[in-house]
């Protein structure tokens, strides 16, 4: 754990000293901040708007940060050739990938916490008390962002940045539209396309599972059992993605 932690803290420090995190943070805060200017709406609608925009903003900007931090964690080290100095040290390639994952998870967490604090502060300023459902939704969004980062990290070990960006965003979009995707598959009559569709449906991470904001916004409670099962599903994807990353990085020459 010691050496993985060294890689992780360095990845975290790198993110703190680069502008990307702050730019994304400012844009996200502006997006959430502007949602309060809908004062012409009724008080209840304004709160719904703030919650909806805030959840979407944390998810979207968190996804961008997760993808670019993960990508930079591997290809950035290779491009800048800092990887030579790392691999020459007494660390294994497994240490490197797990360390990178831990580091990017810390970056994603910091970003999510800062935006969430702003969001919660905004709710409090509107005299609304943030309930447990809000925290459940934020927790699930964080797990989703870890999944996005883990998949992007795995792809970075064997593919180019361009491919990684396209694939990660494709998965992000299709994973968030999996309900509609399933409906299309069910309506398909061709057996081959149907089989292929179901296979893709099962492989593509179902990010829709992590989206409980529609319920939270309208005040519907989500059970802890659902939250727990969804976290377990996310952790399973993360473990598989990190293992895939380790597998490919152990074979990769830099």
């Amino acid at each position, binding site marked *: 754990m010691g*050496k993985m932690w060294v890689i992780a803290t360095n990845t975290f420090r790198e993110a703190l000293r680069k502008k990307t995190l702050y730019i994304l943070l400012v844009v996200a805060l502006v997006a959430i901040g502007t949602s309060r200017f809908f004062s012409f709406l009724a008080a209840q609608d304004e709160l719904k708007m703030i919650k909806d925009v805030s959840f979407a903003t944390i998810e979207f900007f968190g996804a961008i940060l997760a993808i670019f931090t993960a990508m930079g964690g591997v290809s950035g080290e290779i491009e800048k050739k800092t990887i030579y100095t790392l691999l020459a040290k*007494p660390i294994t390639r497994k240490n490197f990938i797990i360390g990178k994952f831990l580091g990017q998870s810390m970056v994603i967490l910091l970003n999510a916490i800062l935006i969430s604090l702003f969001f919660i502060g905004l709710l409090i300023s509107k005299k609304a008390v943030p309930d447990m459902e809000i925290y459940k939704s934020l927790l699930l969004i964080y797990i989703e962002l870890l999944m996005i980062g883990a998949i992007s990290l795995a792809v970075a070990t064997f593919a180019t940045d361009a491919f990684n960006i396209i694939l990660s965003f494709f998965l992000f979009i299709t994973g968030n539209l999996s309900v509609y995707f399933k409906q299309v598959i069910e309506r398909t009559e061709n057996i081959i396309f149907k089989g292929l569709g179901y296979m893709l449906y099962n492989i593509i991470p179902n990010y829709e599972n992590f989206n409980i904001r529609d319920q939270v916004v309208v005040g519907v409670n989500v059970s802890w059992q659902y939250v727990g099962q969804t976290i377990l599903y996310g952790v399973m994807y993360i473990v598989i993605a990190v293992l895939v990353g380790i597998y490919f990085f152990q074979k990769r020459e830099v």
Partner: protein
Amino acid sequence: MPLLKVTGLSKVFQLGRNKTVTALNNVNFEVEDGEIFGILGPNGSGKTTCLKLLLGILFPTEGSISIMGKNQFDVEAKSRIGFLPENPYYYEYLCGTEVLNFYGRLFGMPKGLIKERTEYLLKLVNLQDAGKLALRHYSKGMLERIGLASSLINDPKILILDEPTTGLDPIGCKETRDLLVRLKEMGKTILLSSHFLSEVERVCSRIAIFHRGNLLTTGSLSSLLNQYGADNLEDLFVKSIEKYDVELESGKPVAATD
């Protein structure tokens, strides 16, 4: 037993489906404890590929590497190696002290020892006043010196240096050469890859000359000068390469000597 032994080492890069490039071809050499072993060769001769293979950054196509009796991927063997890459690239957002601290922690060194070594090494490479400066503000020569310091953070038994004087001014080059001699006196074994023949001539106990991925010759400078009838290292370098090219054109096999 040699500290480092390379046996039948080959590296073939696959470029596309049907194209390959042999970067290193059946290379054999040994490095003894406490010597400075110079690796010479023109650009693209396979020197850096050889060093990357020794460090486990690349995987050999054939052959084996033994470092203190262990293979090149062994964590214990790596913990006894210091490495300075050619044109060292470091984390530009870190300052000199942080770089040394980072690499020290990767070696699992205790905090106190890292602090002690950092102060000592910054002084050794004349960067004691630049320890708090971010690397993005360092000159090329300063980067080379912090690279050298970081390669020494773990007090290594084997030091692998790839072009350590690139970018240094004449005074910096002389200081580096003097430092190499001091390190040798301290019992370090040094593998020095360099374009600067005069540098190699002054500090190395034995040399190896690479060309087109082949190890042309290896041995002590005096024995090689005699063998090739050369006056100096530059003459030896040119003659060994010319001999190889002539033999290659005439189809004769070329074997390395030790």
